[in-house]
């Protein structure tokens, strides 16, 4: 009912509107009191850093007032695009993003479809509960576990492969740059598959049982039911999640790469954020590092808008 009084009529004068606004503000005082402090909070910790982007166009020196900084235009971006290391880092970032996107997209759908076919309820529930476990464990622990499993010094994977006669001697998985992308992707799949499958399982449970009954009457076997009913039934969910993950494609973070990487695989493990950390923050080149951050953010936003645009065209709905 109060919502009705808040509708602004077209024929009101400016003064009437102002009066109405303040009257409503007083009426909303508790709601303001409960939200504005947090809005201020968000402003400080999420919006103020954006102001720091100006640094990328300065030769920033800490401790100097803003107006006494020396402006250098696009110099840092030029330096960035001329740095050979940048292209290596960009390659690593894109490679691991795309691999992560594909694997992190296909495997949870497959897992959800399989889980849905298990008819022993306690077994299904047990597998599902276990599959969530790695999601809750930190990357520090996962990196430790992965390193341990793949170690040449009594690591179970090497012991298994040598035991089966596939390898003659333990293979140094963690020291091979070429394998790094695969190891990161598999570690991610191991950690997040169960968690990411939750949404698909929820979507599957929303499919009407009468569809399956009809299919059975028509003589469809289980695989056909899965292919023609379950999979199309979760199509919308799949599309939404795919587009959302395209938007986040380049912001893959750096935790995995930081924790799983080592000096031997550096050429393949360094990603944009790590590059900014090592060559910007680590060397005190704040402006250069910020330029890397900006590049990263701008690419993300472009990807997000592109993905959302495609999505809008496909489904006439917006995810943003």
């Amino acid at each position, binding site marked *: 009912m109060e919502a009705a009084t808040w509708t602004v009529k077209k024929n009101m004068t400016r003064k009437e509107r102002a009066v109405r606004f303040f009257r*409503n503000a007083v009426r*909303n005082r508790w709601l303001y009191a409960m939200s504005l402090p947090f809005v201020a909070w*968000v402003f*400080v910790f999420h919006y103020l850093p*954006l102001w720091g982007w100006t640094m990328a166009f300065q030769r920033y020196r800490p401790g100097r007032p803003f107006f006494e900084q020396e402006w250098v235009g696009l110099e840092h971006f030029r330096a960035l695009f001329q740095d050979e290391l940048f292209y290596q880092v960009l390659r690593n970032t894109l490679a691991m993003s795309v691999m992560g996107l594909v694997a992190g997209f296909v495997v949870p759908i497959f897992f959800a479809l399989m889980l849905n076919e298990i008819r022993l309820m306690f077994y299904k529930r047990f597998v599902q509960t276990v599959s969530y476990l790695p999601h809750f464990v930190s990357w*520090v622990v996962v990196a430790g576990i992965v390193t341990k499993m793949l170690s040449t010094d009594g690591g179970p994977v090497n012991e298994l492969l040598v035991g089966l006669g596939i390898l003659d001697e333990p293979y140094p998985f963690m020291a091979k740059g070429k394998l790094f992308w695969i190891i990161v992707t598999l570690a991610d799949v191991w950690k997040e598959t169960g968690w990411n499958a939750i949404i698909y399982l929820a979507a599957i449970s929303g499919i009407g049982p009468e569809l399956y009954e009809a299919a059975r009457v028509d003589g469809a076997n*289980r695989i056909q039911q899965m292919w023609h009913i379950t999979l199309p039934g979760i199509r919308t969910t799949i599309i939404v999640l795919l587009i959302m993950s395209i938007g986040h494609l380049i912001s893959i973070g750096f935790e995995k790469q930081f924790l799983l990487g080592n000096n031997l695989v550096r050429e393949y493990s360094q990603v944009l954020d790590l590059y900014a950390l090592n060559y910007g923050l680590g060397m005190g080149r704040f402006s250069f590092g910020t330029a890397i951050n900006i590049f990263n953010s701008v690419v993300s936003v472009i990807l997000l808008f592109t993905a959302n645009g495609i999505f809008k065209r496909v489904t006439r709905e917006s995810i943003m």
Partner: protein
Amino acid sequence: MGNRLLRSSTVSDRLFDAFVYAYAAFVLVITLYPFLHVAAISLNDSIDTVRGGITIYPRKFTLKNYEMIFSYQHLGTGFRNSALRTLIGTVLGVISSSMLAYTLSRKDFQGRRFVSVFLALTMYVSGGLIPFFLLIRELNLINTFAVYILPGIVSAFNVFVVRSFIDGLPYALQESAKIDGANDFTIYWRIILPLTKPALATIALFVAVGHWNSWFDTYLFNSQAEHLTTLQYELMKVLQSTQSSVDYRARNMNEVMAHISPESVKMAITMVVTLPILFVYPFLQRYFVKGMTLGAVKS
């Protein structure tokens, strides 16, 4: 699901069943084996471990590894700080998310649209690591406990999870309370909070796990302050110590490692870090499954 109770009879269905069960068993093994392996090594005699061949049970059972790591003082400090930040961070996170979500669910709130967009934008745009680092430095939060808590108090994602839950409640509840003369805060406190418990349990779990698992803020902001170390950071230092074998070696940890092998130390600390989560998450499962589904649909 009742529709699946009909017994399958064709050969292809039976083969399919076999494949499904085998796949599920495979998932179980590759998920559980590493944890059991780590647990086994942490409970096995350190010298015996070096001989190799430990699988998922200790060959020579001992608690000595755990005794050794608990004598290491930084671990105790780290445990205290991790527990403290988890507790404080979770309480504040739940308060902020529920309050913001409640105001956003009120259709008569003027600032609704602005606050909603203001929050949503933070999910897509971030200033990046270096401007954030300099901000923290400007605010004099380097080498303080507050740096663990303050930056993460409001999370847009969590707000939207709770908000979509509140939107699912009948709006008439709020309206009738209003007619009875309750003010907006009373409605939040007496009606919204009790009814949103499942959603709040979900985000409490998200926030708590996030705090318990984070190490990078310690690394970036508080690595000079030994009394502010966290459990994950200590584990990170120990794990990295032989991976790159050059730097990162924690000074005092050397003493511990002189008595028992680094392998056993690492695995025992990994267990200490992981066990609290292992005990908590299965009990909250039904909440977070619901919360995940809600959050995904809305955001």
